[in-house]
């Protein structure tokens, strides 16, 4: 297995680390944001920051779909789950996500019929098997998951499953990156682009980041060596004065993405004028709703929703963490009031959330007293 050897190769990682150090210009620091929660997970699990020179810091971005669900949407979903005859379905990741009035877990304990599924197609199957119940799939995820929801709705329409609907919460990565680029409190030198999202959208949609914001972006795979290679490529671009979109993950990501998946999204969903992201506030054109033609499958039209906006708890600093302004351990409640068992914020819920990843794998001594994000907070034990 050449790839296994290659990608598990400690020598290769060491060579890359040396190459990264060599590409750093003396006296300059570099901050790169990894947009995807999967990357955040790898970085903490493998202690990648430990292999980077002090000049290079990794800033964790908003790319964990569970983390960005606003509390009001969880409450809306719980409200639907409480309606007569409803079976609410969703991914297991969502079970513990807190809303203003509690989580799915709490609602389930209180008697609501909430079932965890692996695929939206499992939810459709439940609908077919329970024609006298109303089955709702709470859809979450970035462009990676949206095509699966879209394909499922197309199936439901083709087969005529009237008791199935989707509570659509799909979000899109490009508007989130743009919001971060436009936010004044963050200095970034480049991006490590998401892998599986790019398998759907391709590499072209990132072009504006290089063109308009003059920041390089490298679409990266999930293994430690992939991430190190991407950092090396980003530094290479900066050293040569280039700003481009590069694809380190061509093994999975075709440059043009997956046209069938994009077409399915385009048929079934439409852009929302704006959508609230937990911690980041409202971002224009950043999420998908069901299209008019599929209104019959749109839980937002089938049910009356309270639609109440719930402010994040005051103690929660997820917004700063999601924007990369704060490191997880700098949040006041990190590891004390907020843990994976009793999460206050969403970043602590999913294993891909920055707070949970750090809580589970953090094995470095951290110096809380040192400067803002962008500087290095990791001191080796």
């Amino acid at each position, binding site marked *: 297995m050449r*790839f296994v050897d290659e990608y598990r190769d400690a020598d290769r990682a060491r060579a890359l680390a040396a190459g990264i150090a060599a590409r750093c210009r003396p006296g300059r620091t570099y901050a790169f944001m990894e947009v995807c929660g999967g990357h955040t997970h790898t970085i903490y699990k493998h202690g990648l920051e430990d292999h980077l020179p002090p000049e290079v810091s990794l800033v964790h971005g908003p790319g964990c779909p569970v983390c960005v669900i606003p509390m009001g949407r969880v409450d809306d979903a719980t409200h639907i789950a409480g309606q007569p005859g409803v079976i609410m379905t969703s991914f297991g990741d969502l079970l513990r996500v807190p809303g203003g009035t509690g989580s799915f877990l709490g609602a389930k304990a209180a008697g609501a019929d909430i079932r965890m599924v*692996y695929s939206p197609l499992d939810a459709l199957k439940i609908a077919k098997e329970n024609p006298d119940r109303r089955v709702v799939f709470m859809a979450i995820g970035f462009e990676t998951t949206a095509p699966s929801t879209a394909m499922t709705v197309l199936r439901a329409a083709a087969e005529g499953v009237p008791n199935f609907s989707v509570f659509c919460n799909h979000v899109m990565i490009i508007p989130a990156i743009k919001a971060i680029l436009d936010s004044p409190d963050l200095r970034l030198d480049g991006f490590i682009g998401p892998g*599986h999202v790019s*398998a759907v959208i391709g590499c072209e949609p990132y072009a504006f980041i290089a063109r308009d914001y003059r920041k390089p972006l490298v679409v990266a795979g999930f293994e430690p060596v992939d991430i190190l290679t991407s950092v090396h490529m980003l530094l290479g671009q900066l050293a040569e004065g280039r700003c481009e979109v590069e694809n380190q993950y061509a093994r*999975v*990501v075709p440059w043009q993405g*997956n046209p069938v*998946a994009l077409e399915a999204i385009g048929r079934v969903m439409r852009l929302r004028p704006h959508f609230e992201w937990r911690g980041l506030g409202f971002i224009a054109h950043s999420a998908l709703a069901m299209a008019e033609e599929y209104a019959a499958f749109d839980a937002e039209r089938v049910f009356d929703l309270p639609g109440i906006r719930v402010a994040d708890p005051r103690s929660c600093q997820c917004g700063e963490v999601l924007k990369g302004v704060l490191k997880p351990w700098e949040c006041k409640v990190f590891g004390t009031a907020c843990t994976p068992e009793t999460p206050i914020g969403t970043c602590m819920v999913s*294993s891909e959330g920055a707070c949970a990843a750090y809580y589970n794998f953090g094995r470095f001594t951290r110096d809380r007293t040192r400067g803002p994000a962008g500087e290095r907070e990791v001191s080796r034990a």
Partner: protein
Amino acid sequence: MCLGIPGELVGPAGGHDDLALVEVSGVRRRVNIGLLEGQELNPGDWVLVHVGFALSKISEDEAQAVLAYLEGLGQPYEDEIDALRASDIT
């Protein structure tokens, strides 16, 4: 839900046209291959499976590397495989 899991195509699953039988981590499951329409697929090919849908075709080398990586993840991977085992799409 964010993990893509490699699976090896076994053959058509019968029933809906978009369904194929895929072996994932020792379990055979029906997987929807509708997103790979227009691509040539043969038994023995590897695909990356995401929430019941094959999202992209990958090489066997890549599949083995991803599997090794996923196994190293521990709990999140086990949770995903458990969810997949419980899944029975049609």
